[in-house]
């Protein structure tokens, strides 16, 4: 029984150390990653637009336009869930 409690305490130590260690590494390497990617990123303005559209493949202005139409038609109750583009 006692040794089980001992094991539980060891688990507490190892578990919390690991979790803290990993999330510390995530923070550090995430920052390094951002710096490296920034270094190779082209002029920020153009790039940021490209980045934000790539998730759905549709430019934000277009999304805004479609959303506006749908909201007008539906009185704000319908929402655009996804806009798919087809292959050319």
């Amino acid at each position, binding site marked *: 029984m006692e040794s089980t409690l001992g094991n*539980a305490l060891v688990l*507490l130590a190892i578990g919390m150390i*690991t979790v803290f260690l990993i999330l510390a590494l995530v923070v550090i390497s995430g920052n390094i990653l951002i710096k490296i990617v920034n270094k190779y990123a082209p002029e920020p303005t153009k790039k*940021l637009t490209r980045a934000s559209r790539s998730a*759905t493949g549709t430019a934000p202005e277009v999304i805004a336009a479609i959303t506006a139409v749908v909201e007008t038609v539906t009185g704000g109750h319908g929402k655009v869930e996804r806009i798919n583009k087809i292959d050319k």
Partner: protein
Amino acid sequence: MEVLNKLYEMTAFGAIGEDPLTLVMLALALFLLYLGIGKRFEPLLLVPIAFGVLLANFPGGHMSVTPSTEIIEHMTILEIAKEHGIMNMLYYMLIKTGLLPPLIFMGVGAMTDFGPMLRNLKLAFFGAAAQIGIFTVLISAVALGFSLKEAAALGIIGGADGPTAIYTAIKLAPHLLGPIAIAAYSYMALVPVIIPLVVKYTISEKELKINMKEQDKLYPSKVKIKDLHRTKIIFPIVLCAIVSILVPSSVPLVGMLLFGNLIKEIGSDTNRLMVAASETIMNAATIFLGLTVGATMTAATFLDKTTLLIILGGFIAFAISIFGGIMAVKVHNLFSKKKINPLIGATGLSAVPMASRVANDIALKYDSKNHLLQYAMSSNISGVIGSAVAAGVLISFLS
């Protein structure tokens, strides 16, 4: 007369008469349905779980999961289906193998946006402190007489992450799967109640009014993301490498989460995979997970003291995790000029994005301009990684 006799034998009345506790289970199923439908507690999982309990507890329906034995574990799928019915077939194929939680994590990954975390990376660190509930409840459970494996499976409820709790239970204490799943999903649904409760006794009004945006203006961060798209593609790969090398046993969960995230972030080139991960596979997996987990709960396996202790212990684990996250922020604030709102620590729990919304609402109550949702999401998402890592550690040492 003989006809009537046979008719009676066909029904479940006899079996229910022999084991009237079955009625308690049916009542529990109805209560869970009420929570899921009426109270909207995580309906995507509680409704299938509750219906699974319902189906499992009509004797003669052959829809309850048979507790694992040496024999059943070595039977083929067809043998299990013929002798024990399709619910056991699904359970031994999809749950007992540990397949569904990683598949659900893949779907979760394909629906997760690491953007808020990347924009406030430092806050991700507080996702670690909120795992303390897992291990403290583990110790208490051991003290109460649970085996180490059982205690670990119970403690993981404090990770506030359904699939992680189920995966850990499958690996360490499959006989407790039912109550652990119920507790995990119920408390996740109760996050809007539990977080304010803990906050009330631990965070002062002055702390609650700490405005993250103003702190950012006072002490601006040096790093600005110039190419978010590319960063979000590389980040899951880096994250996968870090976690996999340090805690390989969490790869089935974390690796699949990050694969799902990667195919989402790549965009249109892998859109088909993203749809499969976040809809096709995810939705089907949710149905089968819910029904089979529910079907493990019969009067014989569910109605005992252990279940009560799990329900109680799960609540304590939740509360301690929130407390741990809050305390970590308070310690940080002692040493740093740039203050962090302790609510950011409370959301280290997991339960994305519910915990962040609750924290945001609390902050707004004290200062209607203090929007901290984006900040809370950072520790919130890192809390998912944190509890999966904690699960990996437990599985690695105990299985």
